[in-house]
């Protein structure tokens, strides 16, 4: 089984430095494209590879790049931004790549920048990734001194500056337009779309924002082609995926597996199954802002289409396990508390709705909830739905709640009837 992204990552060891990375064939992709691939050739290749965005939304990367207007239509600088603001609860996949193989990301960014003719690129990184910060900084310096970054890269005439920006630390800054505002030094609040960043992005210029895992793929696609990429997955969506499992499993962790591996395989074969004495009750498949799946859906393939069909989203592919000894209400309350705190405060339903939901869930935990509170929760799952709010933050927050109310309604009712949390 191929693991292109993580092949050279050795846990608890220093990442490959530039020389070592080059020995593994690193920066050959940059050499290849700068020697004779047209930007449109690269975009075409990435399009045919069907590389779907690994940040969670699964938008086709090549298509995103192709939306950047050509120089003749819109003048001025273009920007590429790597979204390394990984703050999704339960998610730690980008961190693995940032700490484990920084040059893979940088190479991907150089190729992506060239493809959209960007002269400036940024890595927007979560403030808490202190170790990754040191590693990325060093890698950028190495890449500059080796001539992969800066003016006239490898004598091609192509210039690219790459900067690392460490975020001030808000979840919402992982939303691409809020990220751009934050990068400009403004409040981290999302922007209205349209216009999309490809039209008006960083400093008002055409911009592409891609996830770290997405960008890390680019050198491999350049090297091995799109057919190879598509065949890596067990479904047609292409590539492998970093899957993670947290919760009461025997071996929580992170693995690179073909896209489309089933939840059962991931949990049982890689995470070692549930800890003794614990039953699987629910799965949040892709970070906190995705709907619960339940134990009976364990054979769902972890790819974008299959998880969607099962009623949730692949998201980041890093799942959280709910077991039978954990109160689902407390589980959801914990997530909602995070989302309420991380609301940017710009739009009404999210700013006012999430804290209300959080307070109501607290009431359940304290044993003071009534049937009316179920109504209030159900009301909010619709009220904070997509389109009603300014961005996807609150709708995402509602996903575990709405599915929790669907699958674990009895547990909510027990809190009401027993006037305390049955798990305490």
């Amino acid at each position, binding site marked *: 089984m191929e693991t292109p992204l993580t092949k050279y990552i050795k846990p608890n060891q220093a990442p490959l430095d530039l020389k070592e990375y080059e020995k593994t064939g690193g920066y050959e992709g940059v050499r290849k494209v700068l020697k004779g691939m047209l930007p449109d050739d690269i975009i075409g290749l990435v399009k045919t590879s069907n590389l779907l965005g690994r940040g969670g939304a699964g938008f086709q990367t090549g298509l995103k790049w192709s939306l950047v207007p050509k120089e003749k239509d819109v003048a001025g600088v273009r920007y590429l931004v790597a979204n390394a603001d990984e703050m999704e609860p339960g998610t730690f996949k980008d961190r693995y790549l940032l700490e484990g193989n920084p040059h893979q990301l940088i190479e991907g960014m150089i190729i992506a920048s060239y493809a959209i003719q960007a002269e400036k690129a940024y890595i927007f990184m979560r403030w808490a990734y202190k170790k990754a910060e040191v590693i990325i900084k060093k890698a950028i310096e190495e890449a500059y001194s080796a001539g992969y970054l800066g003016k006239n890269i490898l004598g091609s005439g192509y210039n690219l500056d790459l900067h690392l920006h460490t975020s001030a630390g808000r979840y919402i800054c992982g939303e691409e337009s809020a990220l751009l505002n934050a990068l400009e030094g403004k409040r981290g609040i999302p*922007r*209205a779309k349209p216009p999309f960043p490809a039209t*008006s992005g960083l400093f008002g210029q055409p911009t592409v924002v891609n996830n770290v895992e997405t960008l890390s793929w680019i050198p491999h696609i350049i090297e091995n082609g799109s057919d190879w990429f598509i065949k890596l997955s067990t479904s047609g969506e292409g590539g492998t995926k970093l899957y993670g499992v947290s919760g009461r499993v025997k071996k929580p962790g992170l693995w690179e597996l073909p896209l489309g591996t089933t939840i059962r395989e991931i949990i049982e074969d890689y995470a070692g199954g549930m800890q003794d004495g614990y039953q699987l009750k629910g799965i949040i498949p892709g970070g906190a802002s995705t709907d619960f799946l339940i134990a009976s859906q364990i054979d769902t393939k972890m790819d974008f289409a299959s998880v969607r069909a099962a009623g949730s989203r692949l998201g980041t592919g890093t799942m959280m396990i709910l077991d039978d000894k954990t109160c689902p209400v407390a589980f959801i309350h914990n997530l909602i508390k995070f989302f309420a705190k991380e609301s940017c405060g710009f*739009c009404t339903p999210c*700013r006012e709705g999430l804290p209300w939901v959080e307070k109501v869930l607290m009431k359940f935990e304290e044993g003071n909830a009534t049937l009316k509170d179920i109504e209030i929760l159900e009301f909010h799952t619709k*009220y904070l739905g997509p389109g009603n709010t300014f961005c996807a933050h609150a709708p995402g927050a509602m996903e575990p709640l709405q599915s929790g109310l669907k699958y674990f309604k009895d547990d909510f009712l027990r809190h009401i009837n027993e006037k305390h949390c049955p798990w305490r």
Partner: protein
Amino acid sequence: MEVAMVKIQIDGTIYEVKPGKNLLETCLSLGFDIPYFCFHPSLGSVGACRLCAVKKYANSNDKTGRIVMSCMEPAVDGLIISVKDPEVKAFRASILESLMANHPHDCPVCDEGGECHLQDMTVMTGHNYRRFDFKKRTHKNQNLGPFIHHEMNRCIQCYRCVRFYRDYAGGKDLNVFGSANNVYFGRHEEGTLESEFSGNLAEICPTGVFTDKTLKKHFTRKWDLTNAPSICVHCSVGCNTIASERYGSLRRVVNRYNGDVNGYLLCDRGRFGYEFVNSTKRIKNPQLRQSKESALEVKEVSEIIPKLSEALKSKNIVGFGSPRASLEANFALSKLVGAENFYHGISDKEYHFTKLCLQILTSGAVHSPSLKEVEKANAIFILGEDVTNTAPMLALAIRQATRNKSIEKAEKIGIPKWNDAAVRELAQNIHSPLFIASPYFTKLDELAETTYRATSEDIARLGFAVASYISNDAPSVDNLNIDIQNQAKRIADALKQSKNPLIVIGVQGNEDIAHATANIALALKSIDKKPSLSIALPESNSMGLGIMEGKPFGELKIENDTTLVILENDLYRRVEKSLVDNLLEKCQNIIVLDQLMNETSSKADILIPTGTFAESEGTLVNNEGRAQRYYNVYPAIEPIRESWRWIAELIRIQGKPEGNSWQKFDDVVNSMVVSYPIFSKIKEYLPNADFRMFNEKISRQTMRFSGRTAMNANISVHEQKPPQDADSPLAFSMEGYQGVPPSSLTPFHWAPGWNSNQAANKYMVEPNGELKGGNPGIRLIENTTDQQQSYYKNIPQPFKPRNEGLFIVPVHQIFGSEELSSNGEALSSRIPEPFIKINLKEATRYSIRSNDTVHLTVENIDVLVKVEIDASIPDGVAGLSFNLPGMPFISLPKIGVIKKS
């Protein structure tokens, strides 16, 4: 410009609407009551509050539709929407439920109550029962200075305040802090709001977070106010206001929408200057000085008549008009004293400058733009004027004009102008070209492509050079250094390339600058451009007085038995003290008609109490040449009378026919148009007192006015008959027409369901558009005469620093340089100490430090001033705070000498 209309379907009915607007504006224009918070017609949309939701359907087969925010949706052809779909109505009510979760339930003690947009929207959406049963979030309040009261708990986080204060008005010291459910709008620390437009927060804020602190001192609900359409009297821009009274005192001034002038906004001088009306310095009774040696004594009207009669018998009567008195009062005075004895009562510099400006504006080369037109300019050159301090709303309009380039850029890639955040994110710091030449730093400099620091001579030279680079026929300037030449070329190019070039000058400039400006205008005209010229004149009727015939101060000759009649004018603010002292000493009788005690009124022999703008009606001509009328908010209380009425009395005493024929205001207007045919347009445009709406007068009070039977019950239990108003079509009563009157007669903005100022939209054809029946005011100055013109050739010599002292230029202050507003309680606390600005080099030369108090001597006048070090002041130059209260008038620019005290 004709635009093809588009068809949209709303709840099954097809409407033809203008394209390019958002759906919310469109629906409001069509009369639909769609609730909204974060949208404001002058600020555009950002989609934050989510209140203006409507249902949008993909096509006629789509029966489910989806919820969209109408403020973020363009009104495009074929659109199908519903505003009354049950799901969307429930969603809008939910937004209110969310907002009310934390909003205090104390409307009865909130200053906003009764004119609260949040109240209106809550009722409109139908949200009623409270489900949120937790504690409310609370905030601390800040002291934001004398103008604005802060109550953060009332905030609904619509972001309008910061969008107005920062994005629209360029303020820096109000911001939004925090995130999530703890968003705070205020300053980083307590302190006075710095923006000249901070008062608008009270109207922009849809709830009671920011309210008028001056109103709070004598609070009255909107519904209990008696209101009149008024015109701001504190600068020459002529912003439209609503002034309001209860119990005989003026309670507040708010915006009255005029799409051509001030839109939805006012500056702080205009909003808070009104307090002078209630000042303890008001002259409320006639006063008489028995002999030159004795003091003024309060008298009955009947007691001053004999004295007036005697004084007016004099063969030598001289009258001083005033740029802060109405056309009618000035005209009445000129009738009293005879046109040949009528003086304008302003400095000769100002007199000649105003006359020259009028000549330029009517010469046919240049258009006098409304503020709305200023906002459309796409290249602007300001010569010698700090408009932020002399005509603040003009500065605000210029600020908007500099956005035109970014709006064009956005529209090119399909981002409509109303998508406010998107336009700003795209455009970042792109501005339409603005060039500023002034002796010192001005607030607009931050938007300027280039700035040039110089005195009037050099600014005029730059202007002449610009003209010469536009047209070879304009005289060129010798000995101009290469940098200035390049700057002039750059300005010339920008003006030449612009579709709407605008030049701005003002009272701080001089005739040289006006000449240079005329040349630029003529040069632009010669290449088929249509240039505009905006002139910031000092006072509310400077232009109107300028149009009238009258003499400058310099031509005055005083005989020994002269009777001097001074109308609403403190001569000590016009010319040097020694000249006025000398003049007053020579006169036999000094009759002063004014509102406030000042240096001139305190020297009167006969002092006559006149009504302020709130107790009078009158016509003012703004700097654009737009004649507008203000109306009594409440009747002048005898013996206070309107100036024109008192002068009519004087004329009666004098025995001239007008004395008897001028009974009503319209009688004076009728006489005036005979003498000044140019003013006949005013008479045609503004309704006479006998104008009626459906046989009714227009009510000054809302139909909710309360306590009428009780408010004077402590004096008499018999309800008094409301005062009658024979001078205007307005009634001092809640009885009368309550609907939308002619725009110049709008006493308040109210519509069913709309108790807040947002009701103004119901008076318009479309939000931020023209008022129904046209915007108020009639333009008197049009550049229709196409006379043969020639270029001015009198280019001044360059400025050279003088050995004998510093060249002192006037620094006008928004707070302090205007007479009436300086007497307002809140505003007076914002007046700076008299100061002099010099650069560090000059400070070193005189070995003085920042904040030192120094003696400044200009000719024979010695003043104590505080030193401010300002790097922007050129060498050899100093800026002196101009005409602040307590400072003697100094005609500037002049050479002055600084000595350490």
